[in-house]
Every structure is written in C-alpha cells, then in structure tokens.
C-alpha cells in the first residue's frame, strides 16, 4: 500500500504529471504532503504493530500505571502532538504559498480569452475578440498556444458544472449567475483531457473536453481557419447533405456559419470535421461513429439532448458527406 503510494508519486497520472507550471506546482506541493504523510503513517503503524506484539506479559488483572511511566508517556504524547502541530504549520505555509504563486501565474496578462459555457452535457466555447466579427464559436475542443496564458471565463445557464483539466490546473465551478475565471497555461505541446467534475445530471460521465496545446504559430493558423465560414459543399452529394441539414431537424438546434443554420441550442458545427471527438469527447470523430450518433444518440449517451433522427440511408450518406467536408 505504501509502495503503491510512493509509486504514485512519480508515475504518469495527469494530476501529478502536469503539462503546465500550475499543475507542476500543485504536484510538487502534494509531494511534500505525501512525504510527511508517509512518515506519519509508517511511524504510527510501526508503533501500533510493536504495541500489538508486546501483548499479555506479566500478571493478568488491571494495570495501575505508576506515575513515572505516565510521565514518560505524557512527554512522548506531547512531543508527538508538537511535531504534528509543526508539520501542519509547515503544510499550511506551503499551501498558502502555493496558492499565492498560482494566483500570480493566473494574474499574467492573458494572450487569449475564451468564454466557456457549460451546458447539459457539452461545452460551448467562444474565442473572445475585441472585433465582434473575429469572435469564434466552437465546442468541446479547445486549442491553446503553448507558453501563453489563456484566461477562461466560465458561465452556466443551467446547472452547476466544473471545468477541470487535471494536467493544467485545478478545477473551477461554473455556477449559474456567477462569473468565475481560471487561467491555464501549457508548457509543452500535447492533447490534455478534461472533464466536467461537478455532478450535473444524466450524462455527467460523458461531459468531456479536449485541450490541444500547440505552438503559437500553429494555434494562430488554427484560429484563422476556425474564424472562416463553413466550407461550401464540394460535391452534389455534399450539397444534398447540406439540404438535408437545413431542411431537416438538425437546423433547429445547430449552427453552421455561412448557412441558414444559426440555432444556438446545440454545439456549433461550422468546423465539425476538424475536431477529434464527437458528443463531448465520447466518440472518435469518424464517419461511422458520426452516423451512429446522428441516428441513435440515445444508445451512446442515454438522456442526451440530441434526439434520434430517422433518416433514409441516402440522406444519411449525403449528410455525412457534407459534415465530413466541414474542415
């Protein structure tokens, strides 16, 4: 058990193996906790086992402790309590210091500001820009530039959610009527998984998100691409898919910039094909999974707001062709 704990101290768990300075500091702070805890636990268990070993020696009957041995015990217990207090004081100072250093990290001028709205059960993401036309809306996949601070503004229109990307920082709740923010910064490129961490109803388990940290140039290129309206249908099949989309039920909830579809109830699909995952990090974004998701979402995420859509085979193929072209 102890061995497993110490192993945990150096393995690849996202909370401990951070992708950014904030995560690293928290992990470092925890290791201090861990070492102190291990010393205390081992000390107590060894003492306990030793006490249990020395059983029933001497006469039976009730022991009347003599004053000298009680004094020794008093000294022992007092020392132990004193050490406990000192250890707690050290941890308290370390905790406040870590909190302050995280606060300083979070107070850096952000290079990018993202507004995230948690909804049952997906993440509505808007990249903020002083020029309204440059604001960009996407869902469930967030790209950030490596080495730059990203300010995330959190809001919820329905229930309480919690934004958590363990490799980058602690969690922050999204509470209706409250404005919370959290700063994240990745120090290396990579894809980091995140997840809603506050119980939010039926599909709390499948409310995931991806953070893709990439070099600043790649990030800017991505942002530029995402700001563009959707790619027009390239083939007749895709054109028919477009017609199925705007003529069918999809258009009631989803938006595709550059078409008539402008509803904001569901995720924005303007660049759906550029994302790695579907359904808030539940399915890989492949045509097969997408087809299954469109036709029978309730078997993948029972209770999801996405209704089952009974489409004919050719309509479905056309729709897939169209959505697959939304790069």
């Amino acid at each position, binding site marked *: 058990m102890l061995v497993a704990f110490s192993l945990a101290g150096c393995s690849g768990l996202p909370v401990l193996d951070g992708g950014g300075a904030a995560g690293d500091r928290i992990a470092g702070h925890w290791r201090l906790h861990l070492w102190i805890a291990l010393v205390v636990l081992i000390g107590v268990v060894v003492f306990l086992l030793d006490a249990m070993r020395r059983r029933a020696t001497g006469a039976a009957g009730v022991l009347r402790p003599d004053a000298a041995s009680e004094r020794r015990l008093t000294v022992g*217990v007092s020392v132990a309590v004193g050490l406990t207090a000192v250890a707690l004081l050290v941890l308290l100072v370390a905790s406040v210091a870590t909190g302050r250093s*995280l606060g300083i990290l979070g107070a850096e001028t952000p290079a990018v500001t993202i507004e995230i709205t948690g909804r049952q059960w997906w993440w509505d993401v808007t990249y903020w820009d002083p020029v309204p036309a440059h604001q960009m809306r996407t869902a469930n996949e967030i790209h950030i530039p490596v080495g730059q601070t990203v300010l995330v503004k959190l809001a919820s229109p329905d229930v309480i959610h919690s934004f958590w990307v363990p490799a980058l920082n602690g969690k922050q709740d999204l509470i209706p009527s409250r404005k919370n923010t959290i700063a994240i910064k990745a120090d290396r490129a990579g894809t980091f998984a995140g997840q809603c961490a506050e119980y939010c109803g039926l599909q*709390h388990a499948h409310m995931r998100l991806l953070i893709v940290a990439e070099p600043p140039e790649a990030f800017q290129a991505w942002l530029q691409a995402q700001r563009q309206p959707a790619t027009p249908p390239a083939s007749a099949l895709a054109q028919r898919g477009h017609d199925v989309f705007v003529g069918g039920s999809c258009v009631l909830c989803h938006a595709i910039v550059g078409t008539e579809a402008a509803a904001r109830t569901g995720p924005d699909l303007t660049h759906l094909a550029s994302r790695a995952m579907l359904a808030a990090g539940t399915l890989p974004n492949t045509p097969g999974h997408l087809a299954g998701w469109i036709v029978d979402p309730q078997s993948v995420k029972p209770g999801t707001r996405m209704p089952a859509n009974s489409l004919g085979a050719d309509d479905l193929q056309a729709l897939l062709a169209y959505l697959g072209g939304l790069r």
Partner: protein
Amino acid sequence: MSVPARALEIAHEPVDRESLARIWGQPPGLVGWLTSANHKSVSIRYMITAFGFFALGGVLAAIMRLQLAWPDMHVVGPDLYNQIFTMHGSTMMFLFAVPIMEAVGTYIVPLMIGTRNVAFPRMNNFGYWIFLIGGLMVWVAFVLNIGPDAGWFAYVPLAGPGYSPGKRVDIWAQLITFTEIAALVAAVEIIVTTFKLRCPGMALHRMPLFVWAMLVTAFMVIFAMPAIMVASTMLAMDRLVDTHFFNPAEGGDPLLWQHLFWFFGHPEVYIIFIPATGFVSTIVSTFARRPIFGYTAMVLSLVATGFLGFGLWVHHMFATGLPQLGASFFTAASMMIAIPSGIQVFCWLATLRSGRLVMRAPLLYCCGFIAIFVAGGLTGVMQASVPFDRQVHDTYFVVAHFHYVLIGGAVFPLLGAILYWLPKFSGRMPSERLGRWSFAVLFVGFNLTFFPMHLLGLGGMPRRVYTYLPETGWATGNLLASIGAAILAIGFVIFLVNVVRTLTRGAPAGDNPWGASTLEWATTSPPPPYNFAYIPTVDDHDALWSATDRPVVTGLRDDVREILVSDAIDATPDHRQHLDGGSIWPFLTAVGAGIGIITAIFTPWGVTIGAILCAITLTGWFWPRGEPSGEARTSA
C-alpha cells in the same frame, strides 16, 4: 432541594425484582413493540433497522462496483445509476451512520451512567418510528422508480424545480425531515439523560469517555441538523410552492444551498466519527487492561473537535470561486482539526503501548481503525490545502478519503463495539475465531477496494460517473476496487454469521466477560428491564476497576417507575422523579407526522393535515392521567 448522597445510601434493603421487571418492562407481542418505553428494546430495534438499511446500501454499492468494474458496462443505465448512488449516500449517512451511533448510545449510555432508562422514554420510541417511516418511504419510493437522483448533497439548481421534474427530490427532502427529527429526538434524549440521570458520584470528570463522546455528538446534532432541515425545507418549498430561495434571477442564490448543506454536512462527519472514538476508547482501555491514558486530554479533544467541526464547511466549496483569504482561513481550520484527532490517536497508542494487551477481536478492529483512520486523516489534511483540493475535489481521491475516514473511522470501531457489547446485548459470547476472520477479510477487502481509488482520483476520474471510456486508463484501478468490494462483502457476511451464531448458540457470557471497567458490566447480561436493582455509585471513571463494595442507592420505589435525578455537574442526587411508561401515543404521533410529511410532497395541505394529526395525537400523548399509584412525584 438536594439531598446529600449519603442520605440515600442505606444498607441494601431488599427490592422486589419481579415488580421492578414488571413496571420497567414492556408488554409481550406487538403491543409491546408499538408502545415500548424500554430504552434497550427500542435501541435494539433501532440497531437492527439501521443495519438493515446498511445492508441495502451495501447492495447498492455492490451494483455500482459491478457497473464500474470495466469501461462501458451496461449493468445499469445513467438514470438508475444516479438513483443508486444517491440512495447509497443518503442511506448510509441518514439511515445508517447517524441512527446506529445514536441507537448504540441510547442503549449503552443509561447503563454506563447507572440509571434505569433514558430521560424521555416515550419520545425515544417516537424517534424510532419516525426514523422507520422515513426510511421505508424513501426505499419504497426507490423501488417504484421515484428514488432521489440528485446526489446525497442535492445541489441546486440540479435538484431544483427546473432540472429535477417529478417527485424524486421531494422524497429526498422529506427523508431529511424524517431522519433529522429522529436524530434531534435522540440527541435531546442523550443530553438530558447524561446531564440529569447520572448515578451519585459520577461527576462530569468521572464520566466514561463513551458518554462524553455521545454527549458531544448530541450537541453537534442539535447545532448541525437545523441547518439541513431549513435547507431541505427551502428546497421543498422552491419545488412545491414556487418560492425563490435558490433562484438567482429572483434574488436567491444556488451557493446558499451549499453553505447550508455543508454547515450541516461537515459536522455530520464528526457526528459519525466522535461516537466511534468513544467505542475505541472504551475497547482499548478494556483490552489494554488499564485506564485510558490522558483522560482529560481526550475529553478536551472531543470538545475541541465538536467546536472546530463547525468551522470547516467551506473546504467542500473551494472550487466555487471564493476569495483567497477566506479560503486560507478554512484551510487553517481544516488542518487544525487534525490536532485534537492526533491527540486522541497518540493517547490510544500510548494506552496500547503501556497496557497489558489482551488481543481479542474487538481490539483488532480498533487497531485496524487506527491504521486506516490515520491514513484517511492524512489524505484529509492534503485536501485542506486549496491548490491540491481544487485538483482532487469531486474525484475518486475524495471517495477514497471519506471511505477511509467513515468505514475505517466509524464502521470498523462500530463492528468492534458490536462484538464487544454483544455479550451484554444477548448474554452470549461471540466466536473469537469468526471475529478475527471477519476482521482480516474486511481489512484486506477494504484496502483493496478503496486504496486504488486514490490513484483513480489522481488519474482524473471524477465522482458520480456511471461509466467511463476505455481510453481513460481507469480500468485496472476500478477492477481492483470491484474485486476488493467482493472481498469486503464476504467480510460482512462472516461478521453477520458470527452475530447470528452468537445469538443462537454462543456460550453464556456472564456479567462482565471482558473484565471491563464501566457500569454496564455491573448488571446481568442481558440487563434486566430496570437495568440495576440498586442504582450504583462511583468514585472514578473506571468505576468497576477502582473499588469493590461501593455503596448503592436505595429508596427508589419498586412499584412505580421512579428514577434518581441528579445534579448536572457533580451528579449529587437531587430528587426522585416519576417516569412515563409505555404508550401507544408516540407511535400514533409518528404516524400522524409521517402522513403529514409525506402528503406535503404532493400538496402544501400536507402541512395542515400533519399539524392537525399531530395536535390530536400530542393531546392524547400529554393528556393528564394522574399519577399511577398513590404517592405523587416525591421531591425530597
């Protein structure tokens, strides 16, 4: 007017034990059940009911472990899973942990302080029926698919009117009403009993540590429970009559719920844990064959825990976006509470180390408790730190932590206490071998179940998820935990077999099989309905070890229910008091209140109906009937 103790201590006058047994006992059969005013039979019923709910909650846990054993399992869907984990938490907290502690308390405390009954025996019975009705209501609802599904903490707005249609959350809110009434009743019972009914000589500084623990717990109940009753009533009103306590658009606040809930929720943990420390102190002292080391420090630690327990609630809310200074205050308070707990642990260790250990199963449970509880306490200190808590809050790390402190910190001592007091309850000795086996299996199963959860939490697995994806890498840890859960279940079955075997064919126990020091062992096993033929007197907190041939109190009548009321501080005898006997009215009042509370789920008129029914039944309850025989209350 008080009378010096000596005046009542006359040489043993013969008392009529048959008459005592008749007036303090309960009538046979169903009537006795419904009307009982005997604290022991009510407590035994309470314990069996609470363990029944514990078993049901355990079955739910097993279903959850089955569902989570492997990614993408389909044992249950999200709708049922959410009901299951909500029911598991609510059952364990409200229908098992608090009631079982209070049930053991109402059984043992009167015996330990040397009196004949609890202070308000009818109210005691009323509390049991309210508890039973509440528990049955929520479980029947669960079977009918109206089980609450918003978590045992029922955060708004998810639990509010907009996102939890139907009556599921209302059932939960009223469950709170039921169980909190029961808890408050038991708390009042324990406080008045300990303060006013102690036998002569048992001044506050001679009270056994278990009595101290129950006293502190009862005070915590009285201060903590109103917060949750207010909160759950506000929630029910938001849902039923469209009030706006938690609606931010109309000036309400969803965070208000969290503050109220955790102002109760955190002390709740100590309400469960402090009685367990009482068990441990009692058992450790008995089997170390010496008085507990550091009695005064232990008492002060209990009281300090009771106070500090109310200053920590915000550490459940570190992720909600609080100002850093405020959060630091709660970090400091959360770490500070480790000091009184540490003092207790060190005192137990000192007692064990300096005593003459007799290694029996109850002591094994306590040793296991110390190891597990220290581990759980240390992860608790980790979470007091805001930065780290914001990583592991609402993850399986927290699940691991609170099962370490609740199963390790409360259930292990409880099982030890049940084995320890089983001879007193039943008059028969439990099997030592089965006791050791159940401990070993439970210890292994427990650690295998809950240790991997620490790693799952650090690996990013949040709580309250009904399944997870294969690519998360959580499969191994979950499979281990599920295997551990199966072993844990086997351990509980062995324990149950031991209890059943004890009751059916255990060896006769005798009055004091463990050679223990507290007064409950000074009477027969099981105790007679009147507990003691003569009220004992004491001159030490380890009464039976300090002196033989203590004088006893005589002069209490043996033909009416009479108890000795004493001073709250010094326990000098004050007067004799007539105590009410059995009555059907407490049961009828519980039924009336139950009808009102359940009707209030569907219509506000339930409050009116309940008030009318309670008014009628309480009138019956308190209708003056004159004194049962001749002499009225004799105040000396």
